């Protein structure tokens, strides 16, 4: 086998590729060849290195443990000449966040408080292995869980382990995964479906993408395990059409699995068989709802179905169907190989394990983070996000996406877990944290969200179809300085009706940020209406429009 003294990992997630990661990789390969080092140094594409604060290309170098960022095509010759050939680390090019974070060892030791409130279980391989190479995943103890399940555990035992782990679904609703599996298993039938909901359409959420781009096999292994547990025969990955790179990497991973006999008939020589394919969505937000998703796979219009019957009894093509989120499936391999009790020891009562969040907004460090449940939102912003950008004052945080909740600065020491967040009418939701500083106008933000929902409402039920449009109209009026005092009452009434009477969670949660904004930032709405004044100076007040 070929031995390389040095591995150069190029971060190639969507952002980095847009910043030119492919060109940097080509330049690296070419320069290494020119320097005559091609037999000694291996260039490997990998997922995100864990920070994406700027649109820059980052590379990690092993065994020296150095991260260079930003790397441009023009700096590649210098890196090859100085570092790869002569062994001199170029301090000036090392990751600029802080110069002392030159090596990964320093990064983890000196930044204990910064990075190490993160705990990487789901993302352990992201940025360390080549996602397009199944061998690297296998080397990182991949498919150990599958091996264990197929050869030493019964399907019931697998479900028991998942139940013991107290894993809850990561798609937003937080339904206990073990129970869902248990409901699906006894339903009879020669065909049973396992669907992975990878339709990550919530604005501000990009955590599943990190798994699919950086470690697709982890999710696939989770799906195979789920199929084994519930008796699934066929699987679909319903993925957002916009995630081109994820689709490409997942497809490569599935092809490799078929080639290695990890998918298809008689997996690993046992009599368990499972087929898996990708179904790409066409850009409708509603298809993230499980029954709408099932309709979409069947080729029907993406509209939610009546529940019950729930998918575990009658789902895709009226067959028993298990639908779980990407992150949920990605949790399974670690649970099976380490046992449910191990998983249960992480996190807090009622919310076990780790959770991915997409951290973004007016903050210094952005990216996908993984924290054990129980970490407070404030901690995340200060220690992982390195505080609000430009040292501005924090205005609020939108937690759980645009259908999530709004947190004011006083609520930031709430621990992130299902129970504590429920007390303040919030939840981890889709797993996004959007930080707003004082220059943001709350009316403008609500309007932005309302426009999104007006566009995405599927139109099946009246409260949602009409409600989203009316909310949008009223907010437009307020934002342009033409609001009336009674508009606030109208907004509250419409929101309440939508929550009570909408057919599916889209309409029920669409007004949730607005409702909380009306409560927590009421003064700002009143300023817009009574004084025609936008305190943050965002809204364009023109008085010409007649109401």
């Amino acid at each position, binding site marked *: 086998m070929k031995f390389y003294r040095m591995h150069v990992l190029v971060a190639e997630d969507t952002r980095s590729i847009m910043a030119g990661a492919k060109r940097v990789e080509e330049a690296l390969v070419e320069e290494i060849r020119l320097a005559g080092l091609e037999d000694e140094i291996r260039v490997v594409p990998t997922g995100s290195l864990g920070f994406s604060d700027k649109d820059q290309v980052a590379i990690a170098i*092993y*065994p020296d443990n150095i991260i260079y960022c930003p790397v441009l095509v023009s700096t590649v010759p210098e890196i090859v000449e100085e570092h790869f*050939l002569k062994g*001199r680390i170029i301090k000036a090019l090392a990751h600029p966040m802080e110069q002392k974070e030159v090596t990964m060892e320093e990064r983890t030791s000196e930044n204990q408080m910064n990075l190490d409130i993160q705990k990487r279980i789901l993302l352990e391989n992201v940025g360390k*292995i080549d996602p397009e190479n199944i061998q690297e995943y296998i080397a*990182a103890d991949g498919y150990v869980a599958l091996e264990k399940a197929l050869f030493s555990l019964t399907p019931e035992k697998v479900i028991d382990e998942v139940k013991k782990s107290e894993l809850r679904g990561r798609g937003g609703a937080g339904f206990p995964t073990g129970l869902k599996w248990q409901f699906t298993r006894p339903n009879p039938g020669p065909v049973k479906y396992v669907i992975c909901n990878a339709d990550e359409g919530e604005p501000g959420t990009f955590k599943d993408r990190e798994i699919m781009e950086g470690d697709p096999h982890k999710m696939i292994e989770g799906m195979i395990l789920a199929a084994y547990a519930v008796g699934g025969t066929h699987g679909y990955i319903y993925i957002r059409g916009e995630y081109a790179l994820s689709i490409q990497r997942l497809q490569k991973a599935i092809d490799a699995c078929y080639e290695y006999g990890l998918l298809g008939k008689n997996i*690993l020589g046992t009599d368990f068989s499972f087929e898996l394919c990708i179904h790409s969505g066409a850009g409708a937000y509603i298809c993230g709802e499980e029954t709408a998703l099932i309709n979409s796979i069947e080729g029907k219009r993406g509209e939610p179905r009546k529940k019950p019957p729930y998918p575990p009894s009658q789902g895709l093509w009226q067959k028993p169907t298990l639908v779980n989120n990407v992150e949920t499936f990605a949790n399974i391999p670690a649970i099976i190989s380490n046992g449910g009790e191990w998983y249960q020891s992480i996190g807090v009562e009622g919310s076990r394990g780790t959770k991915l969040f997409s951290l973004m907004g007016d903050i210094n460090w952005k990216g996908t983070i993984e924290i054990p449940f129980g970490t407070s939102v404030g901690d995340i912003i200060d220690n992982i996000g390195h505080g609000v950008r430009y040292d501005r004052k924090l205005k609020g945080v939108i937690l759980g996406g645009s259908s999530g909740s709004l947190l004011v600065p006083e609520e930031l020491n709430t621990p992130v877990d299902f129970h504590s967040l429920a007390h303040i009418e919030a939840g981890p939701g889709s797993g996004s944290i959007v930080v707003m500083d004082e220059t943001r106008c709350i009316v403008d933000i609500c309007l932005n969200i309302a426009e999104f929902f007006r566009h995405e409402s599927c139109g099946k039920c009246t409260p949602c179809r009409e409600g989203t449009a009316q909310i949008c109209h009223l907010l437009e009026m307020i934002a342009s300085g033409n609001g009336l005092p009674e508009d606030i009452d109208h907004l509250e009434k419409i929101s309440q009706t939508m929550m009570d009477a909408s057919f599916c969670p889209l309409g029920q949660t669409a007004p949730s940020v607005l409702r909380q904004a009306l409560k927590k930032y009421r003064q700002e709405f009143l300023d817009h209406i009574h004084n025609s004044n936008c305190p943050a100076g965002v809204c364009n007040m023109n008085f010409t429009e007649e109401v």
Partner: protein
Amino acid sequence: MAKISSLEELRKIRNDAKESMKTRSGNAKVRVFASMGTVGIAGGAREALKAMIDELEKRNFHDVEIVEGGSMGLDNEEPIIRIERDGFETTYGKVTPDMARQIVAQHIINGQMISEWVIARNEK
């Protein structure tokens, strides 16, 4: 690639793949430090290092981490290669490609120091 049809095959693939990932694991058994200053390169450090990698590959030994560094200040002993193994740092001077191959065979793989070429040795 034929389909994996048994547990043993999967385990074998895993062990092989693990070997080739050792460079990234940060806990290799042997650490090799090659002095790559201007003097070292002029004195033939590249050739020595190449021979070393070639020999490691031939003998299929991957549990090693090779780090390059600048000059140690001992110009008359260049090329210098330092081996860290079993808690000792052993420094070899004036390493030719042939010597490098022998160092791989005896010291890196089998832990037998070649005393006549050693210029310094200390506990880590």
